[in-house]
């Protein structure tokens, strides 16, 4: 029986196991929405308020489920509104399949109403994209899109479907056991490589493992623990590696990078072996590159060959899926311990601890972001999913919430997209309905995608929004203070009454301005059944430290 391209799309999505679509209808995807009308029981559709919200929600969904997030939008502005989210997914290796409507094939290139060159616009920010002008092309393109999005290093793909292809009727035939040759074999190492890599690790005196997003993506958390526990090596995490190792593991020395912990930054350059596992030596991690790990032997596991030697030359690159590589490596590793080396971290940790106590003393009756996040961590037994925005809220969430379970810290790391948190939390909550999901935002970021409160309202999603309001763009303000002689150029921001705004979306809320009310407000916030906005007025002139200033080496990390 012949069915429309739009219905073929529905059936193809079901073949790929899709359960949720984040989207927004418009002229050029109306036939698809018409088909969805008959499939809404099988395919849950979340109507966002802006297409950027669909993209970030799809990212949030993908980050907690490991499955590609799906977006469905119309042509022209619908598609261009997705762009920030697609770029975000590309930078952070998030699997995502975006379906964009397009004007009918006969109008392509004629500047038709709501026409934009979506394939052209999204090429640099997708792993793969294509335009379909015939219904018969849809099944294979969808199979290919899902395969590409989720195999090798995950990423976003875009399928642009012209309106005539959505209407056109053909037989439905879905490809079986489809694969893309290029991504079929990602592991390119042999047992000889494993022996050599193990020898380097076994002979190390001061080995340091750096874990990144790749550990979470390949679900290699257990393997990482087995490797560190066997070899006794210290382990530090990148921003995206957070929550891959429980915060209280004795070998875990903290977060790396610009606003990471003191000891791992200070001691990275003292390590004799750097074992980089599923991380890409981002500039926020390495600080000044020419002064980064000048003497250590670097072993680098990555599934993406172009990441080897891109920023840091690896003496021993290993190409493959993190989990598979670690499983192959384990039998070659010798039992060892490095207590002296770990002692060096402990010594510096004390320094950070003393600094932290002084900071607490100084801010005793004030509310600062660290206080809020520490309390939230304690009150949620360190088990919540924290979806952050970008800026100080993101860094304080990274440092002061104590992550116990994997996939608990979700953030826009590579692109650094303000406005990420609220829509991404929507996707995360839908992907992990049993987990407690918090969006941690600032007064700047929340206003970039605040319309998604409407989506939360309509879907009745019990998402907790923690708004840390410092009445300014905190991170930029911090830099202005530190590096631009306190010229606070346009970082002061006046905001609406957020509680009333939430109320207009039928979302309950409370504002806290005094330290003595914080405890109780947090209790209510956490235990409330349903969505809730807690606005906490925090200190304006507060900074996130430690800090590795731009252009300095990681061992020049400063505490104030």
């Amino acid at each position: 029986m012949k069915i429309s391209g739009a219905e073929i799309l529905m059936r193809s999505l079901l073949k790929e196991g899709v359960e949720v679509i984040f989207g927004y209808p418009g002229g050029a995807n109306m036939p698809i929405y018409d088909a969805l009308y008959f499939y809404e029981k099988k395919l849950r559709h979340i109507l966002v308020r802006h297409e950027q919200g669909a993209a970030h929600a799809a990212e949030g969904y993908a980050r907690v489920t490991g499955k590609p997030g799906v977006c469905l939008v119309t042509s022209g502005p619908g598609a261009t509104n997705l762009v920030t989210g697609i770029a975000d997914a590309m930078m952070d290796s998030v699997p995502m399949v975006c379906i964009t409507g397009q004007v009918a094939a006969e109008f392509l290139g004629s500047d038709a109403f709501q026409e934009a060159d979506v394939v052209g616009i999204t090429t640099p920010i997708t792993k793969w994209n294509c335009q379909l002008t015939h219904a018969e092309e849809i099944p294979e393109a969808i199979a290919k899109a899902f395969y590409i999005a989720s195999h090798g290093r995950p990423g976003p793909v875009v399928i642009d479907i012209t309106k005539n292809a959505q209407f056109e009727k053909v037989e439905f035939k879905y490809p079986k056991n489809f694969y893309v040759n290029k991504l079929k074999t990602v592991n390119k190492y042999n047992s000889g490589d494993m022996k050599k890599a193990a020898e380097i690790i076994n002979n190390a005196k001061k080995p340091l493992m750096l874990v990144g997003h790749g550990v979470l993506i390949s679900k290699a958390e257990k393997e990482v623990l087995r490797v560190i526990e066997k070899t006794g090596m210290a382990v530090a995490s990148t921003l995206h590696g957070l929550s891959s190792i429980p915060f209280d593991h004795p070998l875990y020395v903290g977060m790396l990078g610009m606003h990471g912990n003191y000891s791992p930054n200070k001691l990275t350059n003292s390590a004799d072996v750097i074992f980089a596992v599923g991380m890409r030596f981002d500039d926020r991690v390495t600080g000044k590159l020419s002064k980064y790990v000048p003497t250590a032997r670097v072993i680098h596991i990555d599934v993406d060959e172009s990441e080897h030697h891109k920023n840091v030359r690896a003496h021993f690159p290993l190409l493959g899926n993190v989990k598979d590589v670690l499983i192959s490596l384990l039998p070659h590793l010798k039992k060892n311990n490095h207590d002296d080396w770990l002692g060096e971290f402990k010594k510096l940790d004390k320094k950070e601890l003393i600094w932290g106590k002084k900071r607490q003393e100084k801010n005793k009756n004030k509310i600062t972001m660290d206080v809020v996040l520490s309390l939230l961590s304690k009150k949620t037994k360190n088990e919540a999913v924290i979806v952050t925005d970008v800026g100080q809220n993101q860094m304080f969430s990274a440092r002061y919430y104590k992550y116990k379970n994997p996939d608990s810290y979700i953030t826009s790391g590579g692109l650094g997209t303000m406005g990420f948190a609220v829509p991404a939390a929507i996707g995360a909550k839908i992907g992990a309905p049993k987990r407690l999901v918090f969006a941690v935002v600032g007064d700047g970021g929340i206003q970039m995608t605040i319309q998604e409160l409407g989506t939360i309202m309509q879907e009745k999603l019990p998402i907790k929004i923690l708004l840390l309001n410092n009445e300014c763009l905190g991170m930029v303000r911090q830099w202005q203070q530190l590096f631009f002689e306190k010229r606070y150029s346009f970082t002061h921001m006046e905001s609406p009454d957020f509680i009333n705004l939430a109320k207009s979306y039928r979302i309950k809320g409370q504002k806290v301005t005094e330290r003595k009310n914080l405890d109780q407000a947090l209790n209510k916030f956490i235990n409330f059944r349903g969505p809730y906005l807690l606005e906490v007025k925090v200190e304006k002139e507060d900074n996130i430290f430690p800090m590795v200033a731009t252009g300095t080496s990681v061992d020049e990390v400063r505490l104030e």
Partner: protein
Amino acid sequence: MKYTVDIVTENKPGVLYRITGLLTKRKINIERINAFAVKGNGISNIYFTADIEERIVDTVVKQINKIIEVIEIKYHKVSH
């Protein structure tokens, strides 16, 4: 340093755009380019010559090799 990059790729629309995009990203200017479909087998050959910094050429070539349609890639220094 001047390099010639030889690419064998599936003959699909947009591949050349992906390749040149990766060069544009790093402000690499193409000096010469030649692309032609191999008759009948859906394969295309693309050759280009460009001035590329020695320290990044390997990464750029590997990034081009990530393009799904690219089948094979080689590069060599152009002697003056």
